[in-house]
């Protein structure tokens, strides 16, 4: 076993043993499992409302949910990835580097012939693999729950789309792992280490979309996007500035296209490129930390 593999295995073991991220993990997997049933309940109520509206002769419009794809039931999953998945990624990233600083193992490891970038790169790889495994399990649970709700096994094409969604989710969560790791190394206390990336996350998820589209923060929790403000004048300028930085909205847009949401328009190329750029930046931020910084003391 070479050093790289040893660090990856150690990271996987330590992350799996951490109790608190496990709590978040349980919430995440639980909500992924519940999302299909929440979608099913919403769909049943819409169908009932439509039948009642038609019975009362109030509309001649077709049922908006006719010929609904089973992928509809995965729409809530996207929100849980943006909310819980990203926070989970931050927490495991922060805990990974804080653990070294608290136990002073960074001193010991860096006394050996190990470059900090290699060490941190291996740790990041371990965490990326952990998230990959977690998302793989979540995808299987999601497909299983949707199959239960629809009453038949999911088609290969739909299954492939769900798998693609989770692949993009992995890319989306990577920058938050990197950010968490970097914050765990650079912060002077464990509180700041956790808080700084969470504040950055809240800016990307809740504040930037408001600047570009006037979307209210709570409406961003709904998988159905609110109609955006007209893209002229003030919002034309702010939208062009903040849209590439609104990582959550980019992920939601790409996910909507993957899930064949009839309301989603455009292509996913730019969204994917932006998510990949954030992932690269997050990984670079985590792995480019210097030896001195890694060995700095915590002031809790």
């Amino acid at each position: 076993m070479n050093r790289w593999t040893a660090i990856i295995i150690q990271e996987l073991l330590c992350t799996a043993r951490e109790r608190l991220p496990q709590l978040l993990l349980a919430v995440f997997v639980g909500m992924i499992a519940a999302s299909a049933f929440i979608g099913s309940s919403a769909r049943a109520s819409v169908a009932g409302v439509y039948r009642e509206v038609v019975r009362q002769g109030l509309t001649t419009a077709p049922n908006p949910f006719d010929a609904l794809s089973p992928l509809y039931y995965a729409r809530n999953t996207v929100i849980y990835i943006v909310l819980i998945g990203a926070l989970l990624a931050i927490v495991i990233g922060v805990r990974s580097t804080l653990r070294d600083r608290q136990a002073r193992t960074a001193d010991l490891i860096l006394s050996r012939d190990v470059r900090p970038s290699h060490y941190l790169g291996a740790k990041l790889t371990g965490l990326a693999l952990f998230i990959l495994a977690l998302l793989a399990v979540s995808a299987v649970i999601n497909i299983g729950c949707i199959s239960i709700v629809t009453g038949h096994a999911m088609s290969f094409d739909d299954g492939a789309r769900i798998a693609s969604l989770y692949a993009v989710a992995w890319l989306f969560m990577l920058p938050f792992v990197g950010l968490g790791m970097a914050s765990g190394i650079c912060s002077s206390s464990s509180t700041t280490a956790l808080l700084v990336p969470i504040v950055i996350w809240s800016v990307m998820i809740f504040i930037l979309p408001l600047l570009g589209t006037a979307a209210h923060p709570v409406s961003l929790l709904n998988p159905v996007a609110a109609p955006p403000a007209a893209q002229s004048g003030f919002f034309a300028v702010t939208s062009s500035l903040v849209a590439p930085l609104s990582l959550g909205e980019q992920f939601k847009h790409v996910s909507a296209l993957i899930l064949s949401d009839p309301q989603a328009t455009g292509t996913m190329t730019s969204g994917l490129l932006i998510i990949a750029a954030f992932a690269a930046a997050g990984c670079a931020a985590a792995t480019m930390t210097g030896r001195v910084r890694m060995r700095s003391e915590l002031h809790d």
Partner: protein
Amino acid sequence: MTETLTLAHKELTDLRRNRFMVVLFAFLAVTVVLSVVVASADFRLKIADYHHYLDALAASGNAAAVPAPQLFPLQMLRGGIEYLEIIGSLFAVVLGYSMITKEKGRGTLQLIFSRPLGRYAFAGGKILALVLLWTATVTGLFIVITATLLLVGNAPLQGGDYLRLALAAAHTIAYLIIWSLLAMALASLTRRTGTGLILALVLWLIVVLIIPQIGDTMDPDNQIPGGLFASLQVDASHEQAVMAHFTGYETTRDLIEQSSVTKQYERATFAYLGIKTEYNQQPLGFIWAGTFNNTLWLLAGLALSVSAALLAATKKTILRKAP
């Protein structure tokens, strides 16, 4: 009583010197102000669109009267209130958590408890400091919000509007104190640094984001962009008649939402600020009659969090969990 006041004074001095907390409060203020600026820009855009529409109608020889978009200044605070309920509560968690962990980290707990303090004096001092701090901070925030409404939003505020703002501020103070005290209680009950914070964050995630998200997603009208009833061309009066057939589902959805203190806070403040259309421009008595249960649940949450903080931050409990 004197010892409680001394401890509260010490806490406030500590917080005033804590640059990190000052930065967080400034960030919160900037965020709320930005939301008002954006709401104001959005309204101006609607007015401009309205004038373009009128011009187009006139050019086509159509003289139909179209009502202009109406400005209700307090409705511009929707984004700001939502930021206070999401980001404000997050900062409240950090503040409450840091009240205990700083003592644990500095090793000052043993020193403080070597003095002849009353059983609840330590917790009482911290709670009093949090109450004073949030009262001052939220008052300051609402003064900034009002100034932004007047200057940037160019919104004419009436005497009653200031009272509504004060009521919204009072609800905000109670809401943020709840979160700080819950985090303080969790920090007192956990041994490891960070454990209390992560537990409080999980609680925050569930109560502030997940429960309201589930309730919101279950709303049939939220299933289609622009609203289900709008897409079916069903007006508000018929919408109520239709939804009367789904009381069981709506009650379940309402109960899910009501289990979150965040929704209780949101419903009450949205009503007083007229953000919820049915309460817009209504007298305060009418709003109170419709939302007193939300205010009472918020107060119940406050009482619960005060009790939790008082019981968790006693000498016996806190020293047992000290590192």
